């Protein structure tokens, strides 16, 4: 069993409500789930969709065939009917979209009428839609009631919605005699989490106490989650006046003694560039989330791309170490955000978490969250330990290059740092000798220690693969499922990089050996020019002969990626046109 529901409509029609509710229902049913969102940069109108895939085995990416299309607007039908699977149906409300569709695959569900008659408010048509889907699927309506009970707090609202849900359920269950869906039985309930929530929760569980950001899609969900949980967990969340302020605030809070993070997308990160350099010079710990979207400039504000890898890697004037991580799933997000805080605090180098709209806005099912996975080590000099020192120099030379990081005000010594080149105490200097020693300390001494922490890429699939799919970040799920699909007929494996920089030293002989021995290594990226392939070549000299690039702002689907991979496997290679239109 592996089904996909698609909810299409205009912005403001409640697509997210339906998508979120059904996702939660399926996870609680015990299914494995992957949902993603496709939306335009507008508050009302246009065309958006929310696509939910659920199965009784692991699902990690979107598929193209749609089993139930919930068409909330007229446009959804011509746009998505072609995606209906062999067993697929579309539901719509002819009173709402003012048109009727003939054919056994189109079911007219009077959602608005049910909402008005049973619930008293037209907005509950969304609940009717959820009920209808459950009815068509032949699942238990009680689970939908449970989910409604957690999202709707007012008793009357809840009761009306339950009536509407039941009406929708009855209609769907009795008016689709040809529906042949056979959902697997109920299993133990799972949780549902979105990428941005996983990043934010990971930060909170890692002891982040300060988050400053300026709203920018697709990073805003982190800001919202942090703000919504600030009081419970004792976190100051501040919406800064701009991204320049956001990074400088994070650095100020960190200097004062608490774990701090900021988050943005490419355009905002551009404004933060002076700040990452400041973090490097002042050796102030900070975690920065760079949630990518297609550029250049404003680009596609609500869509996905992996084009800022080298930007994140090289952003900031001057030379200083940093780490760059790119999680590909909520579990990886937990682990890497926790590791980001550990590394930034331990070595006092900035750490960037690179995500994208596809990771940020997608939802996964989870068996649970193990809080013990979030380790917390306080590397700072505080209280009695700091007070007991006879002297203190913020940028003292040490063997590791890491100077003790004291909390100002907690000991009888001043803590001084400077964006100018400085001496051990943190005061401005001009001399060549100190400059050289400081660069050695900040860069050459610390970098090898950071490198040791970096784990090799994840290998999944055949032991000695003939074909290796290489990728990073949010392509984890689709590559893994591609390996599962092709594994029966091919010796194929995935090599997924989530700790991108410093480029992994550990296990390098093994993973480079795998690549060199393979008949075919294909680098798969959601960008036009192969940013990771460039990094790979820069760090290892390895040149990918084959690549699959997608830069239309949409994520890879399993079918789309398989088609591209099969093209390579069967020897069909796409050639690029040499013509340059528009250039005289």
């Amino acid at each position, binding site marked *: 069993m592996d089904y996909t529901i698609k909810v299409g409509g205009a912005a403001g029609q409640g697509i997210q409500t339906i998508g979120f509710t059904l996702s939660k229902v399926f996870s*609680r049913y015990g299914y494995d789930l992957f949902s993603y969102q496709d939306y335009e940069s507008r508050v009302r109108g246009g065309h958006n969709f929310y696509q939910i895939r659920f199965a009784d085995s692991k699902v990690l990416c979107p598929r193209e065939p749609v089993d139930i299309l919930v068409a909330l607007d007229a446009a959804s039908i011509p746009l998505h009917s072609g995606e209906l699977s062999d067993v697929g149906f579309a539901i719509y409300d002819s009173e709402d979209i003012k048109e009727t569709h003939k054919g056994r695959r189109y079911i007219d569900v009077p959602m608005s009428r049910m909402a008005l008659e049973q619930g008293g408010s037209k907005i509950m048509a969304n609940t009717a839609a959820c009920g209808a889907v459950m009815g068509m699927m032949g699942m238990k309506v009680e689970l939908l009631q449970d989910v409604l009970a957690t999202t709707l707090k007012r008793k009357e609202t809840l009761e009306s919605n339950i009536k509407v849900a039941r009406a929708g359920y009855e209609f769907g269950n009795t008016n689709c005699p040809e529906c042949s869906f056979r959902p697997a039985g109920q299993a133990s309930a799972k*949780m549902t*989490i979105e990428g941005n*929530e996983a990043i934010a*929760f990971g930060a*909170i*569980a890692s*002891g982040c*106490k*300060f988050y*400053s950001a300026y709203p920018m899609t697709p990073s805003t969900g982190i800001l919202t989650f942090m703000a919504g949980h*600030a*009081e*419970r*967990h*004792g*976190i*100051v969340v*501040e919406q*800064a*006046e*701009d991204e*320049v*302020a*956001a990074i*400088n*605030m*994070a*650095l*100020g*809070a*960190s*200097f*004062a*003694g*608490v774990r*701090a993070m900021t988050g943005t997308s490419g355009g905002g990160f551009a404004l933060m560039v*002076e*700040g990452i350099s*400041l973090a490097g010079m*002042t050796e102030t710990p900070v975690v920065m989330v760079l949630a990518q979207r297609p550029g250049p400039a404003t680009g596609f504000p609500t869509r996905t791309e992996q084009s800022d890898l080298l930007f994140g890697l090289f952003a900031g004037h001057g030379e200083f170490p940093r780490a760059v991580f790119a999680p590909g799933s909520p579990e990886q997000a937990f682990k890497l955000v926790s590791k980001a805080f550990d590394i930034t605090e331990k070595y006092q180098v900035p750490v960037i978490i690179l995500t994208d709209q596809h990771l940020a806005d997608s939802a996964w099912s989870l068996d649970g*969250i193990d*809080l013990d996975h*979030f380790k917390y080590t*306080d590397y700072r000099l505080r209280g009695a330990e700091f007070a007991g020192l006879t002297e203190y120099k913020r940028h003292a030379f040490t063997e590791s290059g890491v100077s003790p990081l004291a*909390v*100002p*005000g*907690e*000991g*009888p010594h*001043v*803590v*001084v*740092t*400077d*964006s*100018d080149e400085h001496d051990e105490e943190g*005061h*401005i200097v001009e001399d060549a000798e100190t400059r050289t020693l400081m660069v050695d300390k900040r860069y050459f001494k610390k970098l090898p220690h950071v490198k040791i922490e970096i784990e090799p890429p994840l290998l999944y699939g055949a032991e000695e693969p003939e074909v290796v799919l290489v990728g990073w970040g949010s392509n984890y799920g689709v590559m893994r499922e591609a390996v599962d699909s092709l594994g029966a007929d091919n010796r194929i494996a995935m090599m997924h990089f989530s700790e991108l920089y410093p480029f992994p030293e550990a296990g390098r002989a093994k993973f480079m050996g795998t690549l060199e021995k393979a008949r075919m290594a294909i680098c798969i990226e959601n960008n036009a020019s192969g940013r990771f392939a460039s990094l790979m070549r820069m760090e290892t000299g390895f040149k990918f002969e084959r690549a699959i690039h997608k830069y239309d702002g949409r994520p890879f689907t399993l079918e789309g990626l398989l088609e591209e991979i099969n093209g390579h496997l069967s020897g069909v290679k796409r050639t690029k046109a040499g013509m340059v239109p528009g250039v005289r």
Partner: protein
Amino acid sequence: MVTLAELKGQKPAWCPGCGNFGILTAFRKAVVEEGWEPWQFTIVSGIGQAGKFPHYTMCNTFNGLHGRTLPVATAIRLANHEMPVAAFAGDGDCYGEGGNHLLAAIRRNVNVKLFVHDNQVYGLTKGQPSPTSLVGMKTPVTPSGVTEREFNPVSAAIAMGCGFVARGYAGDTGQLSELMKASFRYRGFSLLDIFQPCVSFNKLNTYDWYKQRCYHLEEDYDPSDFDAAFERSREFGDRIPTGILYRKEQETYEDRQPVLAGQAPLVKRVGKPSGLEKTVEEFA
């Protein structure tokens, strides 16, 4: 008790006769009178001759980037709202490069003390016009004179409802020191704009120029009268008033922020937070 000698820092790299020396003298005196040990307060500075200020006294210091004193100072205060935090910036730093941060800081009303070394010119980059340079002033990049109207920081701050707005003069360290102390004691964001002659690059606004114009606000002047304060803040010609132009007690950010109000500073609450299990349940 901290002494003046203990507040002596690195040897200043300012020009001989620089107005900044007066600000340093006034500040040291104010800190001694407040009884703050060097490690008990923090100064955030930016770039320019004012940016060097904290190095020349003794204090916790974050000497950050040009224009960015206020975001850093704000966040230090939010992470540790028991720590006195002051920001020292120049007119170019604060009114030019960091203008947006000034507007936001006034709106936020976090208890940060802003001291602006206002010499009406760019010193460190050698004589370009600043936002407070007078119209017509000739500089290497405005050979026919500055064309933009000058920014009036005190009027702007009063108009925005900043609860403590004052003007001082580096040549009058007695009054300046008192203004600094009053600023320290005010609960909330405060702006103290300090006239500071640049002996190298501003040949127009000299010690004599300020001396002829600056006068103390009258003893019976009422700084709580918004309309009067705004009117006096616009007096900028043959005579310029110094002193506290506007003063009003108002709720601070720290008072309104539920995570901070009446609670220990964040810096005393580090570690993994409590309540995580409850948040995990929300994903169920």
